[in-house]
């Protein structure tokens, strides 16, 4: 691994290596400090923030399914001020933090983006487009190209920070949504968010989640996510951050080969709090063993079938 250069530039954000952790699976970073030096990973995407603190859904909020899990946390968070004043100071220097943000209305997104712009340690922003849009009757922002375009345009106008948009997989054409982000001035695209799903307990004949529907994540969704990253890579020139079921270095390398500049590790953080760091080291070892001088050279290096 000695000679491999692992540095990556994702949408203007300088990363030590191409492995981030996904929003909603890594708390505010502080939860993982006991297990590892956060400087072993490229950076992390913090839990999605709103202007005001928000409570989540009543329990049960999570359930295990085959090779994955469902969650219906409903974007519980401490609010943007508490994040800046209480959580960020706990993060060691040299750890790029990407702040994820959302709202139930477009202007609320822009307000949070403004508040986070220029805050030390915040290296970039990620718009969570998988949140229900009240005016559209609860359809996700990221499910309607017109609404998504307005959202990206409005947040873009509110900030000069590196801006990623995290896409919902619950769409007919991921390529179309990626093109919308590119057309409205996003600096990069993160994909995919959790897949809408449900499960039932046949003994009680009840949905396993109190909320009925939840987001499906974990190893089971990897091929679906990989397909979407590959399709987005064909459609746009923007850098992509691949997300979906990444559990080991080989999983992460698949996303890089399909065109991702960086990856985010999600559910695997729960089963192994050091997963992201081990994956970063595994990518470097793979690059070294396969004659790649830089891990960045893995991006798009998929061979013809």
């Amino acid at each position, binding site marked *: 691994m000695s000679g491999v250069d692992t540095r990556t530039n994702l949408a203007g954000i300088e990363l030590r290596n191409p492995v981030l952790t996904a929003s909603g*699976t*890594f*708390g505010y970073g502080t*939860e*993982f400090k*006991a*297990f590892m030096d956060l400087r072993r990973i490229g950076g992390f995407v913090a839990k999605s923030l709103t202007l005001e603190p928000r*409570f*989540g859904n*009543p*329990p*049960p*909020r*999570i*359930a*295990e399914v*085959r*090779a*994955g*899990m469902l*969650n219906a*946390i409903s974007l*519980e968070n401490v609010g943007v001020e508490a994040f800046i004043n209480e959580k960020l100071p706990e993060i060691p220097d040299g750890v790029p933090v990407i702040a994820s943000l959302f709202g139930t209305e477009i202007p609320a997104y822009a307000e949070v983006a403004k508040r986070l712009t220029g805050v030390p340690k915040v290296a970039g922003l990620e718009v969570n487009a998988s949140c229900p849009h009240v005016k559209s009757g609860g359809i996700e922002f990221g499910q309607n190209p017109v609404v998504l375009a307005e959202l990206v345009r409005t947040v873009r106008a509110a900030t000069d920070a590196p801006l990623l948009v995290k896409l919902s997989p619950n769409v007919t054409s991921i390529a179309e949504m990626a093109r919308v982000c590119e057309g409205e001035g996003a600096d990069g695209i993160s994909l995919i968010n959790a897949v809408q799903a449900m499960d039932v307990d046949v003994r009680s004949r009840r949905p396993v989640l*109190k909320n009925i529907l939840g987001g499906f994540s*974990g*190893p*089971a969704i990897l091929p679906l996510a990989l397909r979407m990253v590959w399709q987005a890579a064909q459609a746009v020139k923007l850098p992509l951050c691949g997300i979906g079921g990444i*559990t*080991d270095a080989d999983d992460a390398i698949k996303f890089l080969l399909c065109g991702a500049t960086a990856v985010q590790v999600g*559910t695997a*953080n*729960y*089963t*192994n*709090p*050091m997963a992201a760091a081990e994956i970063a080291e595994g990518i470097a070892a793979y690059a070294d063993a396969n004659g790649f001088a830089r891990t960045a050279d893995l991006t798009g290096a998929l061979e013809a079938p």
Partner: protein
Amino acid sequence: MTTDQTAPTSVDPGAPIRARAQVVSNLSEGEANHRIELRVERWPQWQPGQFVMLAPGAESAAPRYDPLLPRPMAIYTADSKGNFDQVSVLYKVEGRGTRLLAAAEPGEHVRMVGPLGTGFELPPEGHHAILVGGGTGTASLYSLARAALERGPVSVILGARRAALLMAESDFEKLGAKLHIVTEDGSRGEQGLVTDVLGPLLAEGGDPAIVYACGPTPMMRACHRLTREAGVSCRVALENRMACGFGACLGCAVPMAEGGFSLVCKQGPVYDADTLEWEGIP
């Protein structure tokens, strides 16, 4: 730092570790109850009531994604054995995860994260500690009983549906606490529910009492009701679904009486029963 033969008292727990733990023994104790003894190099300071996240099955099995998540389980004991520490966990084989765990052989390794959560505070001086364990909830109370006995009188009420599902009865017998056994079918001890014993015990008078309960939600709710009627404090240890165990997934949240939610893995699993919104706990 290692723990000695007695359970730790009011020490602050150390930061959790992720350990590769070697199975020393993993034996059935009757029908579905099992005891796994795990050797780790060094176990942090811990409190009774804290828990571990234990991966289902041995590490040597092929990478396994089904079941995916580790299981939260109470630390039964954690003791120094000289140049290593030994953590024991009692569990009941109920689903795929615990079935796989039961198949882990001595010499194999399992992945364990802990100690996690906020444990029990020991009873105040001069108090009579009444510990109420239902089914697997019993496992959370053993180390508490061991530590509380050094401070004052301890009564233990253990209940289960039937005799074969009682947990750790002989360990509690050896401790020297006053022990009450209750089964719903009367196959061991008195027939009935733990609350049939708790009610009269609270009415006895004598030293001021404090109750510690762990078991199914209806049992803890009933214990809370009885203690409120008697004007006695009640602490409960919750056993919730969790994905991570250390505050990242927010999956284990419980509703609080004052509104909002609390994370069982961080602020809990031990709560003053008055602070919980019991109607909202599944």
